[in-house]
Every structure is written in C-alpha cells, then in structure tokens.
C-alpha cells in the first residue's frame, strides 16, 4: 500500500518544524563552515533545549561533517545535553570556594531529598540536579543557581527549603 507524504515547502525541514529555519540562519551566518561546529551546536541547543540524535544528523549534514565528528564534539563538552532537562534546574556550585564552605553537605541533603543523585533528573521529571564547576560568585559561597537565579550564602536547611519550593510549584500546577 502506498502512503502519500506531504511535500515540504522549499527550504523547509521535512518535519515542518519552523525552529530549523532559525538554525539554518545561524549556519548561513557562519557560511556553513565546519569549524563553526561548536557555535552552531550552541545555537541548536539554545533553540531546541537539548541535542537529540536527529538534530545532530541535521547539523552534520548542513556543515558537511562526518556524524562521528559532530557526535564526538557534542559528547566531549559538558555544556551540551543529549537528554532533555527537567522542568526546573537546581545547579549546585562545586567550585573550591563553595566546597571549602560546605557545598558537599548541601549535595548530600538535596540528593536524599530528591531521591536521585546530581547529574540526574527526578523521577517525576521536575527537577534536574546539576553540579557546576564554578559559577564565579565565590564571594557568596556556597552558591546554588535555581532556574538561572543565583542564591548565595546558603545553609543546608535553606537549600533544602529551596528544593521544596521547586517541588511545591509542581503540586500547585497539578491542583
């Protein structure tokens, strides 16, 4: 049995997803040069949130690079995510200053509270626990970044309270 596929308009991605147009614009800006790979991946992650396999194939094709090279670069750098993130992010700074001021105790407490370790997302897909090398706000150690808002000079109790706040936003939404 034959199936009839809708033919995408010229220059449009077969999926009909308009976000690819934005990506194409960035690729054109760099004249499709292979050495702009990291820049292009930054843009792609900014648009799509994470880098799924199809996206990597698309980038490889557009920049005329072998897929192995694109995949190699995407997995080498910590900044690129190959999996989607949770709804909220809880970034704990594990820089030296924060470490000396007790970030490890916050790490243990928060991991217990969320039931998953740093680098993972909670089972309900609400909070991604992430560690950062250093967010550069060492004067405020220990520091966490909650959905891009920096909170500093935290005690273990305050940090746990922040996690509860993130969790509670979920409860409100469900109700």
């Amino acid at each position, binding site marked *: 049995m034959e199936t009839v596929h809708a033919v995408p308009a010229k220059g449009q991605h077969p999926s009909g997803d308009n976000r690819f147009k934005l990506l194409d614009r960035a690729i054109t800006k760099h004249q499709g040069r292979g050495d702009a790979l990291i820049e292009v991946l930054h843009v792609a992650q900014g648009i799509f949130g994470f880098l799924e396999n199809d996206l990597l194939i698309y980038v490889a094709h557009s920049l005329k690079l072998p897929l192995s090279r694109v995949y190699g670069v995407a997995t080498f750098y910590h900044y690129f995510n190959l999996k989607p993130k949770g709804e909220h992010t809880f970034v704990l700074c594990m820089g030296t200053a924060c470490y000396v*001021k007790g970030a490890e105790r916050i790490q243990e407490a928060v991991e217990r509270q969320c039931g998953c370790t740093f680098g993972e997302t909670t089972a309900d897909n609400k909070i991604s626990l992430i560690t950062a*090398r250093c967010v550069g706000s*060492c004067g405020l150690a220990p520091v966490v970044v909650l959905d891009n808002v920096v909170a500093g000079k935290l005690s273990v109790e305050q940090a746990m309270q922040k996690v509860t706040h993130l969790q509670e936003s979920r409860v409100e939404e469900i109700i």
Partner: protein
Amino acid sequence: MTLEELHECAEKENKKIQNGKKRILYCSAAGCVSCGADFVRDTLKAKLQEHHLDKECDVVGTGCMGLCGEGPLVKTAHDTVLYQNVDESAAEQIVTSHIKENRIVTSHQCDISSPFFASQYKIVLENCGKINAESIDEYIGVDGYQALAKVVSEKQPQDVIEEIRKSGLRGRGGAGYLTGLKWDIVSKAKGEQKYIVCNADEGDPGAFMDRSVLEGDPHRVLEGMAIAGYAVGANQGFVYVRAEYPSAIERLKLAIKQAEKAGLLGSRIFESNFNFRIDIRIGAGAFVCGEETALLASIEGRRGNPRPRPPFPSEKGLWGMPTVINNVETYANIAPIIRNGFEWFSKIGTAKSPGTKVFALAGKIKNTGLIEVPMGIPLRTIIFDIGGGTPDGTEFKAAQTGGPSGGCIPSQHLELPVDYESLATVGSIMGSGGLIVMDSESKMVEVAKFFMQFCMDESCGKCIPCRVGTRHIYGLLDKISKKKGTQDDMILLQELCMMVKETSLCGLGQSAPNPVLSTLRFFRHEYEELLQPVETFQEFNDVHEVNFEK
C-alpha cells in the same frame, strides 16, 4: 576615527565629568548581581525620580568594585564614598540624605582607607568600578585607545615588541613566559596569516579575575589584542570565553561592535594600513581547553584534545599558522605599558616578576573579593591585611593557589613573597590567580581528593597516564579518606603521582598530582592519621597467611 577625533572624544567625556553632574555607580559584576544589584539599581532610579533628582544624578553600572563578599556595592562618583550591603532602605537613604542633603549614610559606609583598599595597586583593574563598562566613550575618556593610536601612528612593530620585552611582562595565565619573547617568535615566524588569541577560558574553580576584567573593562582587552596584532603582523583575533560567563560575553560583543563602529577595530585603523578584526568563540565547558593547544582545537570546532609541543602555537597554531596566545590579564597590561613606558612598569613588583597580579580571594576569609597587588608582596599581607584573616577567629591553615594545578601553602610559609619563582619553591604555582584560604576545619585529604576528582572528570582521555592515573590516584585517596588505606597505599600513591606528573601529555595531567604532592609534603600527618593501624594489618596477614615473598 582619527587621532584628533579620539582626543576630542576624550576631552568631551572629561568635561562631562567636570560639569558636576552627580553619578551613583553600582557594581554590576556577577557577584553583586547575584545578591540583588539590579534591584538596588531600580530602587535608586525610582527614588531619584521620586525626589526629582534624576536630572542631576545618573545611575551607572560599573565593573567589579572588589569587595564581593559585602555586596551589593554602591559608590558615589563625585566624593568617592563606598556603600556595602546596600538594600532597599539603604538605597533610599543614599538618595534622600547623601545625594539630596550631602549627608553620608554612615550605617552602610565602607571604609576605603582600610588595608583592603589601601594595600592594593591597580593597573589591570584601574577602571573597574569607575567607568561604565558598556560605554566606549567613557573608556576613551580615561585615555582608552591612546596606546593603540600611539603604536599605530608612531611606532614600528619591532619597537612595540622591544618595549614589551623590556618591561619584563610575563604571561599572567600561570606559566609566566615572557610576553615580549612570545611576540618576537610569532613576528619572526613564517606564515601568510597570523592570529592573536585571548584565553578567557577561566576554568579554575574559585577564580574570577578574567571574568571581572571582561565585564568591567572589555575595551582594555580589545586594545591590548589590537596592539599585539600590530606588533606581530596579525589581522585577526579571537577571544575564547567560557559559556558559563554570559554577561562577560554580552559586554564583549557590545564592546567589539562599538569599537568597530568607531573605527578602532576593522579596516585602516587610525588611517594606517593596519587592519584588525576580533571575533568571539564561546567555549562549552571543558577545563582542558584552558591548555593552549586544546584551546586552538576548540576554536577550530574540534574536540578539545591537546597535542604534543613542539611545534609551539607561536610557530604552528590556529590552522597551522603562527599564533599568539595570551591570557586576559596579560592583554589588559599592554595598553598601560605603552602609555606609561616600560621603565614605569618594570619598577613595580620584583625584578624578575614586574607588575601586579590580580587575585580572587575566597574561601574561609573575611574579605572575599577581587584584589590587585604588586608582585612580591608577602602572602601574609594578602591574607591578613587585605583579606582580614579567617572569619570567627578560626585558625589559618593553608592557602591554595593555582586551583587544581597548584598547591597548598601552609602557615609556616606565610612570609613568602608572591611571585612566580617563590611559589614554585614551595611546590605551588602562581596559576591564574585563584587564592582559596582554608582554616582548621578543612581536611587536607578531602581537599586533595576534591581536586583529584576534578582532574579525573576533566581529563580529556587522550593520554593514558592522565586518563588512568588520575582515576587510580582518586581511588587511593578515597580509600585513605575512608580509613581503609595502608602504608603500602601511601607508597603507591606517591609513585603514581610522580608517574602522572612526568609522563602526561599536557599541563592538565602534568600538574594534576600537585595538590596531592603538596598536601603530602606539608600535611603528611593528616594522611597517616587515617591509615589502618599497623597491628590490624599484621593480624590480617596472619589470618590470611599472606606471604609477600612468594
């Protein structure tokens, strides 16, 4: 822009300041923004409007004011009064009493004659906290781009290199290679195209000097790079910044755009035949990219794997062409050296390490923040006079310099002058400038384990000593810290450290064992206290009838 136009612009800026319009400066660096600087700015603006003072007084965001631990910081420009821990009510008082009635708000005033400010000597940070980081005119007003103008219109490239060489400026990225010498090699290297690269991949945890310079005074770095380009004959520069520094990237982008518009970057700069463009490359979170060959690979869009040197980047760098790679702070020193002459610069600091060094003070210390001191200053002055010592009267134990590649300096070496050579004698390095203070609560085995875990995670995996060695060292440290280690493990640990140090390919692996070696050197007893007692070890052998001679 021509030279005359540059002077005109500078004069216009200075007149504006002399005209007596008051300015409230607020620190808009990441540290203060994290504790509410934006809210303070909005409050200040709203209050000024409320009291009909907004015509007489501007609110201006500047770069880092230094005392990051006491933020948000606010300064009045006309009488240089600094306020700390500014909240809503303090912001209101600054407007109602200081600006309106000229009465200083003493409850939040910060004493700028205290040693924290008085013991510093500012070259790199001279404009941080004074000018609006987002305005090229204000930079020109404080003699900005004068050095570039002087170089392009009056000097031969070789004279510029000679000037930098005579000043004795050494690379501020950590290794301390002579900048003038590096430029000289590149200028003499053969290649149709040459590149200037600025290393702003500040990966050391606990270090934020480069970010503060980029956020507070981005034009200074661009000017330094352009001078380097003129000196070695390059027409293209790249700044490699960490993706973790979004505000630095924004300011830098804006600064490049402004400079291009003013004709200070681009084609025919100051109506000469010198062309220079600067592009930004954003990193993606790999510590190893601070290593120069890995950084070049990353700019070319590849995995950040280092390669063996030689050939050094000065001969074969970006796309195989001769390339100058210097740190942000090094470029920030160039313009003042050209403006004031090499004699001026070489008199600051020590004979072998002239100039100043920016440090990021953090950890168990009262005054956390950003400082700039002359080279050769004793460590004690930095920690106890400028830093104010450890908080709550706990005992100072050690200072860690150089991040995961550096070492700990214990209290018996507090008199040590801070310069490249002296730090090397106690097994540490200058590094890029992170200085973490630890007190008696910090356990040194845990600290060593922390750094080793960092290096283990960040090892790129290209060479085996680093990839496998760091993992095993971490395993041994973990075993010892859990009180399961034996004397044999200690011997193995030391052997492994020396092996990784001597056989790794790049700086990451070669310096990864430094924190372990330096804590072993000064705090060996802390390791030994955690070892299994010898008796149980003996018992174990007896029970299992282990015969080691077999």
